[in-house]
């Protein structure tokens, strides 16, 4: 980072920062505090009565098999979406990074899903996998002789959400991997080649190692997707079903807050999610030190 010439002014920097800070304080920090406070209360219907209950909300969550189920579902979906999605995206990015004619066209054909929303991806896949007229089910019935009930079978419903998520995230992941590959220091790769390292070895010990900051960044953003943004897709495709098979933590929180009006219990779930996000944020910043270092 260069040293930058400074302007004079005591008040001006604060004035310039004020709009950003005011909005963050009012619409982020204040709600965070309120969420913590609310998590210690039991709120009666429509917030008309509030009673302090201490940690009772957390205790009842910890003792609820249903809540542990939502945690498990969230972690399973997150794990497969993140690992599967990143592996596929990296493989595609490596292919698209080959110096061939028309490379730019292929790249745009591969990264456009960045623009997809969880809801749009959900609507399209819901239709593709529908029994009776969905194209995927038609193809499946040609192969195995019968259609699959994607929305009725708990395992298949989870798989459907995972597939839709991976497709939806492809554009985002490929864009960042391509940017990373294009900034890669080719000298190291050439040196490795001269040293006689085979392609497989070159990939793991050079390319993959040099891309690790990007992989880490994507790991975090994909986890955030699977924890929160996935909501729109779940709401449109499965509504948490069948039998809560796809009832992820954020969906459970939404239902407790806005369908059953248990604000306190929902706030306690927010606090748990908040703790998870803080842990991730800290890991992210610790490693982003390496990040800045790299590019020099």
């Amino acid at each position, binding site marked *: 980072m260069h040293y930058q010439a400074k302007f004079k002014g005591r008040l001006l920097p604060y004035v310039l920062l004020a709009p950003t*800070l005011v909005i963050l304080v009012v619409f982020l920090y204040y*709600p965070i505090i309120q969420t913590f406070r609310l998590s210690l209360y039991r709120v009666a219907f429509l917030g008309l009565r509030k009673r302090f209950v201490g940690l009772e909300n957390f205790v009842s969550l910890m003792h609820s098999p249903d809540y542990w189920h939502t945690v498990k579902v969230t972690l399973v979906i997150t794990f497969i979406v993140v690992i599967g999605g990143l592996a596929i995206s990296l493989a595609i990015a490596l292919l698209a990074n080959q110096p061939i004619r028309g490379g730019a066209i292929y790249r745009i054909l591969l990264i456009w899903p960045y623009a997809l929303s969880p809801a749009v991806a959900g609507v399209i*896949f819901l239709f593709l996998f529908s029994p009776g007229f969905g194209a995927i089910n038609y193809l499946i019935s040609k192969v195995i002789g019968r259609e699959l009930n994607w929305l009725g079978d708990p395992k298949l419903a989870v798989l459907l959400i995972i597939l839709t998520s991976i*497709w939806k995230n492809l554009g985002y992941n490929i864009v960042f991997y391509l940017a990373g590959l294009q900034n890669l220091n080719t000298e190291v790769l050439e040196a490795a080649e001269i040293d006689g390292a085979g392609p497989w070895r070159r990939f793991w010990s050079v390319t993959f190692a040099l891309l690790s900051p990007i992989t880490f960044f994507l790991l975090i953003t994909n986890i955030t997707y699977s924890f929160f943004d996935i909501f729109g897709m779940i709401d449109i495709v499965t509504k948490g079903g069948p039998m809560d098979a796809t009832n992820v933590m954020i969906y459970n929180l939404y239902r407790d807050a806005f369908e059953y009006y248990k604000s306190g219990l929902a706030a306690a779930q927010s606090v748990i*999610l908040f703790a998870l996000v803080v842990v991730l944020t800290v890991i992210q910043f610790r490693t982003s030190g390496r990040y800045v270092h790299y590019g020099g």
Partner: protein
Amino acid sequence: MLRFLMSRKVRREILTHIGLIMVSFLVLTPVLFALAKSTQTRAQVFHYPPIFGPGTAIKDNYYTAWHAFNLGMYMKNSFIVAVAVTIGKTILSLLAGLALVYFEFPLQEAVFYFILFTLMMPTEILIVALFNLVSDLGWSNSYLALIVPFMASATGVFLFRQHFASIPSDLADAARVDGAGPLRFLWSILIPISWNAIGALALIQFIYVWNQYLWPLVIIRENAKQVVQVGLRGMTAVQDVTNWGVVMAGAILAMLPPLIVFILLHQQFMRGFALGQEK
């Protein structure tokens, strides 16, 4: 030997082409299918085996989605909100970046970390408290609820701070010697050389806001102010009688604006972001 190498290189290139064509097609297939179905009548949609070509109801389906299902209105709402947030965030982030890089003031580090901490704090996590707050402000069912809480951006501040810091310092020196104030400097020097970073931020924010779902779902109860993602929810809600041709038309319409923004700005995005990472 040379001919052997040549042919190996050519073979490799052909294989890469084949691989890329197959993968591109696979990634594109769901949307191509949706596009085909969006032109078909109900009978054509439910035909078995499925028809993959265009149908005869293109005008009907898009007309129905736009008018009967109010997608036109929802898209107008989404557009107003997305443009307002994108412009607001860009301006606020530019100002904050200017303050953090070109000034020295007490608590500078602390302020930066105070902003940075919010980078990974998604709205969804605060949804209950934010809902109470915005309802108390009387903003439910208004654009304000969808715009104001999202005007500040840790991503934007971070991006511009990195970007400004990588600009040669002679520029600000020269500006100061010429007697230009900081705002003048921002407007006539920084912004014109920051289009890649601005484009990158605009792309990220427009698509992020356009695709928001949970927050508008809970805070907007009045149909007239609802956004397009939640509008799609309404189209599929009536399962038994769902006219999938119309729903697919809706999905195509809803993805067009972010897709256009992405295609227009993706090169700036890749350059702006690469730069942000490098320096």
